[in-house]
C-alpha cells in the first residue's frame, strides 16, 4: 500500500488551473477544481508533444468526465484515469491525490 506524499500547501494551487510539482524525481501536474472540491494529479509529460507542459493546460469536463486539454496540441486527458479521450491507447500516469489540513498529498507507485 502506497503512502501519501506531502507535496505543497493548498495556496500553492491555482483554482480551475494547474501547477507542476517535483515528486520523487517525477514531474506531476496537479489540478484543483473547486466546483467539485477535488484535486487531481497526472504526469506532466505530454506524450504527443514530448514536452513537460500538461500542468499548463486548461481544465473542465467532457460529457461529465473531468478533463485536461494539453496546451500544445489540445488533446484531452481524463483527470481520473489519465486516458486520452481522442486515442484510448495513449495515456499518462494518474496519481491519487487529496487535500488534508490544507496540505496537498499524492500517492505514487513504489
Amino acid at each position: 500500500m502506497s503512502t501519501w506524499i506531502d507535496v505543497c500547501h493548498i495556496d500553492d494551487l491555482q483554482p480551475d488551473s494547474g501547477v507542476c510539482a517535483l515528486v520523487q524525481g517525477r514531474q506531476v501536474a496537479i489540478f484543483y477544481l473547486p466546483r467539485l472540491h477535488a484535486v487531481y494529479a497526472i504526469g506532466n509529460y505530454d506524450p504527443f508533444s514530448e514536452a513537460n507542459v500538461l500542468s499548463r493546460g486548461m481544465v473542465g469536463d467532457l460529457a461529465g468526465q473531468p478533463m485536461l486539454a494539453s496546451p500544445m496540441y489540445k488533446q484531452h486527458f481524463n483527470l481520473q484515469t489519465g486516458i486520452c479521450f481522442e486515442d484510448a491507447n495513449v495515456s499518462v500516469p494518474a496519481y491519487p491525490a487529496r487535500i488534508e489540513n490544507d496540505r496537498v498529498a499524492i500517492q505514487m507507485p513504489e
Partner: protein
Amino acid sequence: MNTKQTLVVIGNGMVGQHFLAKLVETAAKDQFHIVTFCEEPRAAYDRVHLSEYFTGKTAEDLSLVESGFFEQHGIEIHLGDRAASIDRQQKQVTSAKGVVIGYDKLVLATGSYPFVPPVPGHDRAQCLVYRTIEDLEAIKAAAEKSKIGTVVGGGLLGLEAAKALTDLGLETHVVEFAPRLMAVQLDDGGGAMLRQKIQALGVKVHLNKNTSLIDDGAHCLHKMNFADGEVLETDLILFSAGIRPRDDIARASGLEVGPRGGIVIDNQCKTSDPDIYAIGECALWNGQIFGLVAPGYSMARTVAADLTGTEASFTGADMSTKLKLMGVDVASIGDAHARTQGALVYTYQNGSSEIYKRLVVSQNKKQLLGAVLVGDASGYGTLLQYCLNGIELPENPDSLILPQRHDESVGLGPDALPASAQICSCHDVSKGQVCGAIEAGCTTMGQLKAETKAATGCGGCAALLKSVLDCELIKLGVEVSTDICEHFPHTRQDLYNLIMVEQIKTFDELLDKHGRGLGCEVCKQAVGSILASYWNDYILEKPHIGLQDTNDTYLANMQKDGTYSVVPRVTGGEITPDGLIALGQVAKKYGLYTKITGGQRVDLFGARVEQLPLIWQELIEAGFESGHAYGKSLRTVKSCVGSTWCRFGVDDSVGLAIELENRYKGLRAPHKIKFAVSGCTRECAEAQGKDIGVIATENGWNLYVCGNGGMKPRHADLFATNLDKATLIKYIDRVLIFYVRTAARLQRTSVWMENMEGGLDYLKAVILEDRLGLAAELEQQMQHVIDTYQCEWKTTLQDAQKLKRFRHFVNSDQADDNVVFVEERGQIRPANAEERKHFKLIEEAA
C-alpha cells in the same frame, strides 16, 4: 510534328479574356495553338469597376488575368498591337505592327467604343470619354486643372462616370437628352426618385438637354450651349452617351453587319463566315446588341463549348441589372416599361424614405414581367427568380413590394425555385449545382463560395445563396448546431449578448445561469475573450485565470519544447537604436534566439517559464511594453516609412500606424487582428492583406477591411475613401467592436465577412450609415477599452502573488531538464529527440 490548329482571338477585354479562361478549362487547349491580340498596353481588366481606379484601386487590382496565365497555357499574346485586317481567303490576320498570323478559327471580341455625339466642339481639349484606363488617366490629369466637370449621358455608365468626377473632387453635372435618368432601365417614377437621391448627393442633373455647340466659356474652359437656349459652363466634359459596336474590321473583311452596326451572329455566335465567331458588345444577335458583361460571358461560354464539339447555344440574355450608383440601390428587371400587351402595373412610392418600387405583371396577374426598384433593391433576388422561372405570383402581387409587416413573409422560399434556376449570374451557378455542393458536404457560406464560386462576383446573390443553403441543410436533416460546445446551448454571439445584457462579470456566474458542467477549453477561452473585450479587466485576476490559454496565462507564446517566446511591442515597427540595443542585450543575457517577425518587431525565443518575469523586468525598464503576441488581440500595425522619408509617400504612414497601434493595443477579439498603413498606393505595407488596412491618398485615407494573408489569403475590401483621420478612426472603432460582438469563436475578420449575410453592403450600412443605430454605442465601448488599457506585464510584475505562477515546479527551484538547446548558425535551437538522447547519455556517464 505540329497537328494543332491555330485559334486567333481579336481583343483581350473582359469577354475575350473570359473566353480564353473558359477555353483552357476544356480539351480545346490541346487542340489549338491560341494567339490573341490586345490593342491596349495591358491585358484584360475589370471595366465594370473602373471608377474604383479613382478610389485607390490600381491597374493591377483591376486586372482580370491571373499572373502567369498566358505563359501557363501557352497562349501567345500581342499586347499593344491591334489586329488591323482579316484576309478571309488566305485565312490570316494582319496586325497594326505588321504581324501576320494564319488562323483555322477566329474569334472577334473587339468590344465597343463610346459614342460621341457629333456636336460642334466635341473634339476640344478636355472633352474625354470613359472606357479604358488610359481614359481614366487623361480624366485624372484634366481634373487637376478643373473645378467643374460635366457628364453627357445619364445612363448607367454616365452615372458611374459622374461618381468618378465627384470622387476627383469636382462639382459635377449630368446632362441627359431624355426626360429621365437611366432611360433604358427605369420608368419615369424610378428615374425621378433616382434623380432626387443623386441631386441630394450634390450632383446637378439637367434633363431634356440637347447640346448644340461647345465653345469657349467665360469662367470655365468650355461653354455648353443647349438647343433650348440655356448654357452650362464646365472645365471638363465626359461623353457617355452610349456605346457602338466595333465592327470595322469585320465590315472591311466582308462579314455581315447590321444596318446600325454590330457583327451578325447566330445561336452558336458564328458570323456569316462559319470559321469566324463574334462575342460580346461587337456582336449583333437577333437584331440586339448586349451592353452588359453577363451576356458577353454567356456568348464566350457558347463559343468555347462549340469549338470542343459540345452542344451549346446563345439564345439571348436577361438584361436585368442591380447596381449601386453613388450609394443608391437601383435595379431593373425584365419588361420594366410595361410594353407587354395587357401588362398591369403596381407602384409603391415612399417619399420620406426615398424608395420607389414598381411591378409589371401579366394580364392574369400570374406572371411577373418586370420590375423597377430604386432606394431599396433588397427584393431583387426574389423578384428576378419569379420573373426568370415563370413562378406563379401570390394572390396579391403587390405584397412583394409593400413594406413587410412582422407577421407576413412574402419572400420566395428557395424551395419554390426549380433546380435550373440561376442563383449566381456572374458565374452562372444554378440552384442544382448549389444543392450538389451542399450534398457533397458544404455547410457554410464560405465553403459554398469556394466550391461553386457563387456570390463571389458582384455578390448580389449572397442572401439568396444563404437561404438555399439553410433550406437544403434542413432538408438533408443536417442539424447545424451553432452551440459553442456541450456546456452552453448558445453561439459565441449569444454569450456576448447575455454577458452584455445581464452585466455578467465572471465565467462562473455565466455557467451557473446559462450553462452546465464545468466548461472546457473552448467555452472558457471564448468567454474569457468576451469578458476581456467587454469589461477589459486584467486577464490574470483570479476568476479569469482559468479561462486563459497557456499563452495568455504566461503572457508569452509557448513553443514546441514548452519554452516561450517574448515579443515586446514595437509600435508601427519604429524602434530607436537604444531600443534595439536593449533588446539585443536582454536576448544575449538570457541566451535567447532572436528573429525579426513579419509584423515588424523582434521575437525572442527559448525563455523558460521562470525567466519570463526577469526578462520583462529588464524590458520594461528599457521602456518596452507587452506586445500581446500571445493574445487573440491586436497584434501589429505594420507601416512603410511614408512621406517622412519616402520620395513617393503622400502622407505620414508611420505616424498614423503608431497612433492606431497605441489606440487599439490590448483590445481582445475573437481572433488576432493585424493592421497596416501604407503611405501611398504603391502599398509597401501590404495593407490590403490585413484585417484593417489604411492607404494614404492625396485626398485623405482609404480604409480597407477584412483582408488576410496566411493560409487562406483574402484581398481586403475597400470600405471608405478619402477620409480625414477623425472619421477614419471612428469607422475603425465601429468595425472592430462590431466584429468583436458578432463574430464566431476564432473567426478572423476575413471569414466573418465571407459569412456575413448581406456582405460588404450590409457592413457598410451598419458602420457608415448606422442602420442599426449602434454607432455611438460601438464607439463608446471602444473608448472604454482604450481608457482601461494596461500593460499586462507591468501589472503582473507588481503582484508577488501572480509572480508565483512563473516557476516550473511549485515545490522546487529546479528547471525542466527536458528543455535542451543546441547551437545552430550562432544561436540556440531546441534539441531534437536524437540529440536529447545523446545528451542524456553524456549526463548519465558523467
